[in-house]
């Protein structure tokens, strides 16, 4: 029998009560929600039976529309209709404003860290808008499954960095979803095909969506998927096949290609839809006949064979294969080493795409699962495991740290504690010691990244451990532990071994950056800018002080006879003061000590000057000097 946990009085679960969990594919173009029902992963339809929710949000003063309704608004109210919002997740205003084509949104100029867009309901961030896409998916799932969700697995592109992942988590939290885990999209697709049951292998995930193309190379080791290379084209997708076909239609229409520019938005949409319908018809048939009506007349009618369409599609497919070749090169493997090729995205239904990709990798591609659903289904399977609906031996750990985590050590170098691609959860510890005699505190600076020097990595957090007993340098033993739980939350703790003094920090949430953190980081960059200025001033003052010391030392050595018994001790005291100030951190004190030494040395210096002058003048008459000066 299964193991039981003690419940609160009256709350023992009915047997077979499942903890409801879903997988969500939060896509650039469309989003889906899926769940495991009776052991099978299924996508959940909305009230009218649609599975795909267009990732479009229209914000009006009195309501927020999501999906098809919002999409329909994009022509009328582009400024407040947010499509492809995923591209903005975790990005700064600078990144967003450089995007091409330019976005039709109005950005809040006062918020450079987190771009916020103008809406009739106030400024909204990409996180808030993404939350609006997640909300109806959550409602849909709870209605279909008949209960409250314990959590969700949300998929993200493999190339998403921590800021983008954190933005996705924040969006889920705003939508009232507990994120069980973020899962890489290609990993989700591989899971849907059950590829995790193999012991090892190399897998390529070819994801040709509506507007983007991604290729990911995964390595499977002991049930853990590691993304070893990604590539793609953010400006290439299934829509480009429609555009190519639309252009082809216009060339042959009675209106001619030139008319293409003159079409209204509505006519453009009709043209695209006709092209899309032809493309879809050619998926199942070798030939299709259609006609194009524009402005009340039939401007084209005819038949198109699959071969003709293939000729149009080939240049586009060629571009995806170039990206595949690059990803393989990055991964350092040959196409023939790939064991499975998973096809994701609606455009991979095009037979020519399957043909060319199969030929490229030299094997049949996996197409049994609906390429629109495969990512959501894989996420649902993972959610089911994480919600505790499967026993531990079926449990698969999938998450790895995307970047190394470490500590700053002397000289601004990074000591890596948890290397990248370590599977989660994980805990690693290392011992550190003090640098100076009598040091009673250690400052810990947690950084993320692959570079050797701190300034090239991302700063995650700082904290300090105080109360270390004064000892000679190197005698204290401070054990620093990095721990990341299955949710990606990093806890760093430091403990001094003799006294047991303990200090810790949680980098929250996850080891990534929340939006506030991004802002904080920007602010801290300013703070450090002033630190840097101080440090520079201090260094300069020290150099100046050292120079004064050297000067006075050499003067005292060469003209010791000019020193009176009165000013010798004063001078030595002032010299000692400066020597001490240079060792300290106080720039002002160094300046003052320099000035003090100069004042103290003034009589001595004057005597030296007089002596030098009289030496120069000795043996010359006043007339001689006057003649020299007139020259």
């Amino acid at each position, binding site marked *: *029998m299964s*193991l039981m946990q*003690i419940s*609160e009085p009256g*709350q023992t679960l009915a*047997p077979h009560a499942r903890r409801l969990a879903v997988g969500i594919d939060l896509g650039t173009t469309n989003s889906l929600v899926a769940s495991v029902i009776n052991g099978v992963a299924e996508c959940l339809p909305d009230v009218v039976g649609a599975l795909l929710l267009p990732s479009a949000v229209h914000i009006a003063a009195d309501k927020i529309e999501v999906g098809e309704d919002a999409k329909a608004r994009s022509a009328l109210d582009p400024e407040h209709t947010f499509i492809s919002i995923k591209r903005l997740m975790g990005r700064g205003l600078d990144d967003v404003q450089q995007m091409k084509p330019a976005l039709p949104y109005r950005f809040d100029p006062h918020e450079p860290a987190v771009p916020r867009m103008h809406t009739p309901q106030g400024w909204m961030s990409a996180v808030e808008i993404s939350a609006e896409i997640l909300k109806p998916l959550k409602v849909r799932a709870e209605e279909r499954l008949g209960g409250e969700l314990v959590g969700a697995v949300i998929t993200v592109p493999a190339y998403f960095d921590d800021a983008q992942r954190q933005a996705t988590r924040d969006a889920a939290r705003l939508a009232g979803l507990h994120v069980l885990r973020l899962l890489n999209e290609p990993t989700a697709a591989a899971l849907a095909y059950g590829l995790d049951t193999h012991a090892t292998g190399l897998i390529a995930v070819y994801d040709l969506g509506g507007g983007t193309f991604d290729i990911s190379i995964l390595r499977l080791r002991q049930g853990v998927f590691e993304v070893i290379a990604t590539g793609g084209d953010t400006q290439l997708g299934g829509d480009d096949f429609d555009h190519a076909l639309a252009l082809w239609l216009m060339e042959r229409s009675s209106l001619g290609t030139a008319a293409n520019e003159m079409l209204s938005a509505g006519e453009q949409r009709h043209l695209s839809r006709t092209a899309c319908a032809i493309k879809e018809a050619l998926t199942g048939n070798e030939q299709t006949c259609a006609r194009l009506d524009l402005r009340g007349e039939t401007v084209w009618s005819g038949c198109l064979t699959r071969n003709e369409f293939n000729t149009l599609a080939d240049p586009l497919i060629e571009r995806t294969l170039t990206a595949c070749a690059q990803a393989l090169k990055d991964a350092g493997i040959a196409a023939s080493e790939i064991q499975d090729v998973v096809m994701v995205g609606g455009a991979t239904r095009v037979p020519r795409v399957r043909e060319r990709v199969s030929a490229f990798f030299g094997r049949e591609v996996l197409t049994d699962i609906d390429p629109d659903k495969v990512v959501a289904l894989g996420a649902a399977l993972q959610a089911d495991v994480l919600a505790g609906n499967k*026993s*531990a031996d079926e*449990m698969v750990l999938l998450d790895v740290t995307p970047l190394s985590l470490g500590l700053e050590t002397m000289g601004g170098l990074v000591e890596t504690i948890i290397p990248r691609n370590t599977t989660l959860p994980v805990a690693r510890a290392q011992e550190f010691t003090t640098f100076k005699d009598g040091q009673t505190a250690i400052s810990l600076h947690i950084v993320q990244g692959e570079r050797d020097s701190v300034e090239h990595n991302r700063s995650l957090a700082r904290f300090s451990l105080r109360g270390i007993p004064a000892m000679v340098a190197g005698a204290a033993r401070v054990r620093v532990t990095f721990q990341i739980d299955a949710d990606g939350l990093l806890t760093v703790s430091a403990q001094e071994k003799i006294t047991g003094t303990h200090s810790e920090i949680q980098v929250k949430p996850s080891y990534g950056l929340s939006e506030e953190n991004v802002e904080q980081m920007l602010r801290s960059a300013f703070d450090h800018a002033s630190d840097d200025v101080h440090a520079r001033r201090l260094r300069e003052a020290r150099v100046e002080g050292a120079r004064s010391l050297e000067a006075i030392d050499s003067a005292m050595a060469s003209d010791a006879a000019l020193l009176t018994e009165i000013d010798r001790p004063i001078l030595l005291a002032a010299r000692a003061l400066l020597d001490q100030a240079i060792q300290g951190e106080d720039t002002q004190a160094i300046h003052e000590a320099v000035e003090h030494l100069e004042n103290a040395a003034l009589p001595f210096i004057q005597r030296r000057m007089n002596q030098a002058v009289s030496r120069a003048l000795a043996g010359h008459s006043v007339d001689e000097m006057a003649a020299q000066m007139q020259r």
Partner: protein
Amino acid sequence: MSITLSEKAANYVRDYLSRRGKGVGLRVGVKTSGCSGLSYVLEYADEFKPEDIIFESFGVKVVTDPKGLLHLDGSELDLVREGLNLGLKFNNPNVKDACGCGESFTV
């Protein structure tokens, strides 16, 4: 007649009771549900009811009602680790047939 805890199970329950900060013992019982007739109840007991039957194992009180005792008499609760999961398991001599997962049973 008795329902017992193994020593490990008793330590586990005591630990959880103290962490919870209240409770007089562990309530076990059965309820009618599930695919195979009956299922177990395993809860903290905050009070004893007049009809309760109280046993004690290693200092931990195990409480049940007459219906529970009927189905659970002779049972021992053990602490078991299965993979990553740690939990309590009923070793119930009265069970004639259980569903595949053991969450419900018939006597």
